[in-house]
């Protein structure tokens, strides 16, 4: 330890730089606008009660409200009643900054809807990738057929094409089919994963032939073999691939940005955050950082719980 102090010094400096934006993001999501502007309040802010001006403005009492409240304040003038009602509104509209920020994050924009969309899109992409890639991988690894080399060659060639790079022609094709601004547009381009096919094929190569022969002796067809014999053996590899796929598509911003325009019902979490930023005025830093925290948290928490699996999954492409 003493001999290694300089190593720790360097690594800790690195840690500070790496952590800084996370620290700031979470810290701003706790603070009131005033504290953010003045840069005060440490990490959690002072959490003094603050008054939400919009909430008070919404409760500005009308004549009817004042008339209705007249019997609660007997013998007072209209002006006094009005002031009393305003004071009540201010009490009810005051809250801790952290509550304000997070409640605004969920009420100013349909954040729950965005999160749900994120889940729908990432999960459907992953499931479709498996449905498409697994049978092909099995055939390429274990069946002898005319044209196998050509198909495998095609898979290897497709590994060279990053889907983001061909976004423009894909967008044109989807637009021609009238599919922009649909879930299909978000999901379909990712259904074929050349990488997933390649990876599963490499994995199936290591599965002993005896297992498949035994299944055939039992009278199983090839389709049944894929789903009832090969799928269970492939669970560890699939889990790693799931992490790889889900992380990539939860965080993806480029593709949703291209095919979803304006229709908030289809926004994925990054698009939602982007829109929040677009129409945010100065006082909305807190709620915006709360939104960012909400979007980043699920993956980070999952990562902290299952680090080994995540690192394995994300660096999967390194295991070729």
């Amino acid at each position: 330890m003493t001999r290694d102090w300089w190593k720790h010094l360097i690594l800790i400096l690195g840690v500070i730089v790496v952590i800084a934006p996370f620290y700031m993001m979470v810290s701003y999501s706790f603070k009131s606008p005033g504290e953010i502007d003045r840069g005060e309040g440490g990490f959690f802010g002072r959490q003094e009660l603050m008054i939400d001006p919009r909430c008070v403005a919404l409760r500005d009492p009308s004549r009817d409200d004042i008339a209705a409240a007249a019997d609660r304040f007997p013998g007072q003038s209209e002006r006094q009643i009005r002031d009393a009602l305003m004071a009540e509104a201010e009490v009810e509209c005051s809250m801790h900054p952290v509550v304000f920020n997070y409640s605004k994050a969920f009420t100013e924009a349909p954040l729950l809807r965005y999160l749900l969309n994120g889940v729908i899109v990432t999960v459907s992409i992953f499931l479709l990738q498996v449905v498409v890639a697994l049978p092909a991988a099995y055939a390429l690894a274990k069946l002898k057929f005319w044209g196998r080399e050509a198909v495998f060659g095609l898979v290897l060639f497709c590994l060279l094409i990053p889907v983001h790079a061909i976004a423009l022609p894909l967008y044109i094709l989807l637009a021609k089919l009238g599919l922009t601004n649909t879930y299909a547009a978000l999901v379909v381009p990712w259904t074929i994963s050349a990488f997933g096919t390649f990876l599963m094929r490499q994995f199936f190569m290591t599965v002993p032939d005896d297992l498949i022969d035994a299944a055939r002796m039992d009278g199983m067809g090839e389709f049944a073999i894929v789903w009832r014999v090969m799928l269970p053996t492939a669970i560890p590899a699939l889990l790693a691939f799931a992490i790889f796929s889900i992380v990539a598509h939860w965080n993806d911003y480029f593709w949703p940005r291209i095919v979803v325009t304006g229709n908030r019902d289809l926004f994925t979490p990054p698009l939602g955050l982007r829109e929040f930023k677009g129409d945010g005025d100065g006082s909305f830093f807190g709620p915006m950082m709360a939104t960012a925290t909400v979007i980043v948290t699920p993956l980070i928490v999952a990562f902290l719980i299952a680090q080994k699996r995540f690192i394995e999954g994300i660096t999967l492409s390194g295991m070729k």
Partner: protein
Amino acid sequence: MAVIDTTPPGITNNTQAQECRAAWSLTAPALVLMVAILLLPVMVALVLSFTNYSLGNDGFDWIGTKNYDRLFSRSTYEKMFIATFTYVVTVVPISVGLGLGAALLINSLGRFREIYKTIYFLPVMATLLAMAIAWEFMLHPSIGMINQTLEMGCGTVIEAIWPFMATGCADGFPVWLGDKRYAIWVVCFIGIWQGFGFNMVLYLAGLTGVHRELYHAAEMDGAKSAWERFRLVTWPALGPTTVFVVTISCIRAFQVFDTIEAFWPQGGGPNKSTYVMMFAIFEKGVQQNLIGIGSAITVLFLIFVMFLTLIQRWLVERKVHY
């Protein structure tokens, strides 16, 4: 296959034909999708890059290589190439170097290895767009954490020995994202910040494959210093990892988009200094509906990326240990 060998020839043919049919029906969905989603768009981009097509028009005119001529003559596209290559050439070596450095340091530690590894990997997991917005606040000229930290250095010795601090304290610190001298470097910094943890993890995996005996052997041969041991044993053993890490970092760097779009939704930064290729494709092709020019950029982009991957495959196949 033992089962087939013992069966009469007629049945063998039958089984083979069956297997062939099954194999084709199993690969058919993947095959169709590969052609429709990956190959067809490449062809479409190639064809459209020679036209003046726009979405909504019925037809288009062939305009030969005009789109490409424009790419290589207009100053906007010159800026695009400069920004893209500046980004790639900066981010790749530094993020690979930092990844290797961090891996070596962490690997030599007895304690706290996992903590460092976890923390350095966090940016890889986090949604880049969200982190870009967090960085934007950090870099805010007046209330951002970076300039506030720098201001604390005013009036101390740092001001005397570092000219940057002296000018900053006198005339105000930079408006990082609005200044064409800094914008691209800030984006590079965030790219490095985001990517080096990924490289570190790959290098850590590579380091577990280096045999202990090799170090002993090198020491016997007179490699006394740590640097000699690194040069003679570690670096050559990490050769395959390095090839892979460099390629994947390049491909990822070419695709930079999220940070740029988050910081400068219109126009690619101050004086177009951060107008990278992905942003250009998005702006020209999708927003301005200039499909021809967007396709031409796409084609160039694909050529760069495929070329890089082919170099990597060629190096791996030759098992180069430099």
